[in-house]
């Protein structure tokens, strides 16, 4: 479990600057929520944390992101290694359509390392248990991953991210495409993961941020407005704009 410390991070899509010298940190054993109105740069910030941002054509980032003290934007750092250690779950479930549930769960291990079948099976079970999907799929591991329901697919994607045993887990609105029951399941899951992972989650849902996070970061127009313990953020925010936002007065 390693900490993430972001300092003076800016990001661009082509000429358009979407992050303006962001500072934040995410501590091990805690959940950090990123909130803010649509288009304020939440996803971009999250994607800068494991160097996924630069995968978009014309996108670039500048600044420091210290992961366990090491700058992931430093010279000679391979983004592949960074992503291996800082996992990510996307807003829309994206299981690999050509793979079975089992193959999806251990895709990172199967394709990224040489591992024996028995070991893969053990890792798949562990990851699927951790994401709370095991009981539902254990009798049909060879079924295609795309046949699951949306909520199950998302938990499969979480299992897939967990199977490579990352040290940080980034989640971009992981429950926004799901029904209330699946959402609840994923929120519980995040609480369980917290003890072992450093979790950073983007959410649109204020109640969700209040329920599951320890720290909250509020952004507006690519800038950090306030970064504080969640409790404080939702009861006695420092900034007027934060108060307006968390009480639903705008955004």
């Amino acid at each position, binding site marked *: 479990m390693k900490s993430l410390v972001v300092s003076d991070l800016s990001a661009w899509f082509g000429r358009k600057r979407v992050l303006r010298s962001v500072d934040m940190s995410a501590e091990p054993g805690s959940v950090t929520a990123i909130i803010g109105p649509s288009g304020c740069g939440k996803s971009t910030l999250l994607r800068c944390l494991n160097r996924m941002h630069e995968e978009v054509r014309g996108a670039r980032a500048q600044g420091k992101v210290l992961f366990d003290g090491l700058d992931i934007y430093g010279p000679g750092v391979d983004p592949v290694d960074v992503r291996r250690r800082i996992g990510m779950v996307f807003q829309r479930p*994206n299981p690999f*359509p*050509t793979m079975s549930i089992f193959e999806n769960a251990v895709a990172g291990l199967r394709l990224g390392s040489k591992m024996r079948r028995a070991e893969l099976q053990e890792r798949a079970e562990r990851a699927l248990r951790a994401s709370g999907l095991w009981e539902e799929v254990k009798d049909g591991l060879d079924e295609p991953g795309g046949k699951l329901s949306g909520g199950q697919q998302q938990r499969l994607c979480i299992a897939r991210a967990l199977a490579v045993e990352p040290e940080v887990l980034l989640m971009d609105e992981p429950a926004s495409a799901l029904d209330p029951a699946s959402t609840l399941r994923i929120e519980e899951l995040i609480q369980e993961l917290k003890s072992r992972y450093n979790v950073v989650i983007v959410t649109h849902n204020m109640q969700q941020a209040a329920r599951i996070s320890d720290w909250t970061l509020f952004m507006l127009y690519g800038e950090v407005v306030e970064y504080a313990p969640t409790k404080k953020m939702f009861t006695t925010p420092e900034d007027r704009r934060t108060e307006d936002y968390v009480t639903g007065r705008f955004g």
Partner: protein
Amino acid sequence: MIASAQTGAAATFGRRRLKDRAFTAFLWACGGVALVPLGVIAYYVVRRGLPALSVAFFTKTPAGPLDPSAGGMVQSFIGSGLIVGMACLISIPLGILTAIYLSEYGRGRIADAIRFVAEILLSTPSIVAGLVVSAVVVTAMRSFSAIAGSLAISLLMWPVITRATEEILRLVPQELREGALALGLPRWKVILRIVIPTAGAGILTAMMLAVARGLGETAPILLTALGSDYVNSSPWRPTDAVPLRIYDYARQPLEALQQVAWGGAITLMVGVLVLSIGARVLSARQERRLR
């Protein structure tokens, strides 16, 4: 007042329905007209081609001048297989690699230039491709040859494969690439193990369409492989091909030879039809999967 408005409305409605009917009928007629040439082609090819098909047709070479029968065109089938087979070996790997480059890496000037070249080649008259290969390869080798034919056909197949495969690869959702990259997989592995298998059947479809095109081309082979009355399996020697033989016999005044030409036509058409239908089926299945 109200009554007249109502009858007015009814009249408008009636007129509209009439227009609608007329237009529908017109569209059906257009569709029917479009089918007529296809029907005529199929009718003629089957009626004149079927009687030509025999064991000898598929197993014998052309008869000598003293033989009253017309013989077969086995040398054309083998030649077409040789020419198109070698053309596949050249154009499929090149086309797929180009497509991968264009869809996964291609940005900026080089990619645009490659796309432009493919576009131009796609619309180049095939006889021009034959002429160029003839001028370069046949002249250099001082002989017509199967390989020269393959090169000319490759020139026509490569852009088909490249453009079609690029399109298929672009259909693979970006989210899948990102999902795989976020697992810490290197880009080449993501392409090889996620993108290509997901595009799978679509790539096969592109190849089949290209082969169908390659099989039917006549002009470029005429100028490069020349044709031959004998079975040839050497890439370096002049070689026959089905469309060449059709071209040759169809201009002869002898009924027996013309019949062989029709036999060639029907086998060629069936071959191309099978490839196209196969491509259709595969791509329909693929679309269902990506959805």
